[in-house]
């Protein structure tokens, strides 16, 4: 809370939007946002570790509640993938990758629900003054995901059509094989290849970042007095409930786009 300290509103927000950065070389690129990486890794370990723990003792008989929940999740993902991906055995890579994306992104998005000041104050006591708990509100994280998917996309395109087939498609699709159309085709594909990872990552980032900012504004209002605290809390509750939808929806969209991109990479034109 800003109350009790001497932070101005802009300083409060600025404070919460500062990464815990650790430079490991010269230049702006050679720094690591420790908070994003640690939180993301921890959430992934918790989420996927939970799945692993349940799945390890999975029975094909009558499942317990825990297993039923995990099965529900896995079958949901599998249904989605089944509807989009028709290019070979989805169980080998695409479906589990989609599960990873969904679980991980949901958990990272869900960090928005934690009361930020209650999380960061104790971390400040042990010397971690800057800690942003939502990894998906870090553009690095979303780009890491979308660029990984982008690389997968290119990799699958090449493995499905061969390197020259891929190059051929870059120049001969979607408009036609005529050499006059090659520049147009290439330009079109270039735009597509650039826009895919951009929209993929920025959509998630924008939603989560906006959510975070809105929470910060509400909590700042909550620090202005009794009325602010009451209304800030009520609106914070409302926004948090609405945010549940955004968290799940954005994770779902991110997962679906991952599957769609990989499926599209397999398609011959």
């Amino acid at each position, binding site marked *: 809370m800003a109350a009790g300290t001497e932070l101005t509103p802009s300083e409060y927000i600025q404070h919460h939007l500062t990464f815990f950065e650790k430079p490991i070389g010269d230049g702006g690129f050679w720094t690591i946002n420790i908070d994003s990486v640690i939180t993301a890794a921890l959430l992934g370990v918790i989420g996927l570790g939970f799945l692993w723990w349940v799945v390890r003792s999975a029975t094909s008989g009558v499942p317990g509640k825990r297993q039923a929940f995990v*099965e529900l999740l896995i079958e949901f993902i599998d249904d989605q993938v089944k509807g989009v991906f028709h290019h070979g055995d989805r169980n080998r890579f695409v479906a*589990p990758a989609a599960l990873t994306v969904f679980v991980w992104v949901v958990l990272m998005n869900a960090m928005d629900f934690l009361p930020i000041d209650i999380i960061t104050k104790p971390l400040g006591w042990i010397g971690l003054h800057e800690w942003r708990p939502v990894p998906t509100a870090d553009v690095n994280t979303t780009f890491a*995901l979308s660029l990984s998917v982008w690389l997968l996309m290119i990799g699958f395109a090449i493995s499905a059509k061969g390197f020259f087939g891929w190059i051929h498609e870059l120049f001969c699709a979607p408009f036609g094989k005529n050499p006059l159309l090659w520049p147009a085709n290439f330009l079109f594909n270039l735009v597509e290849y650039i826009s895919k990872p951009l929209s993929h990552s920025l959509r998630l980032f924008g939603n989560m970042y906006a959510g975070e900012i809105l929470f910060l504004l509400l909590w700042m209002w909550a620090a202005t007095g009794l009325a602010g605290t009451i209304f800030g809390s009520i609106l914070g509750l409302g926004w948090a409930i609405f945010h549940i939808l955004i968290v799940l929806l954005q994770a779902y969209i991110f997962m679906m786009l991952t599957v769609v991109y990989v499926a599209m990479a397999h398609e011959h034109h």
Partner: protein
Amino acid sequence: MNINLTLLAQAIVFAAFIWFTVKFVWPYMLRAIETRQKTIADGLAAAEQGRRSLETSTHQAEEAVTQARRRAAEILAQAEKRAAELVDEARSAAKEEGNREKAAAQAEIEQEVTRAREQLRDHVASLAVAGAEKILRREVDAKAHADLLESIKRQL
């Protein structure tokens, strides 16, 4: 909001997580789910088969009951016919027996009549002889018959 090395770190983490899921999470769950699906499918198939065999045996049982009923009706009809026959036979046998008895009785009666008639004839004859003897005894003339008696004596 600047791009930095975090990108690479997160990408590596992401790759590791995907590898983990592909390797350790997905296959086990899928195996369990598929095994269960197979079990359920087998169970449904078995139920279907059981239903069908039940149908067949019900059908067979009905057929058997129908056949048995028909057979019973046949047997009953035969028995009735036989009973009627027996009654007829008994009746005709009794009639025959009666006729025979009647004939025998008639024959006996006739015999008796004949015998009585014979006896009557004998009696009548002896009565006639006795009457004739009485008549003759009064009318006989010893003298007139002496010659006759004499001639009989000679013949002796």
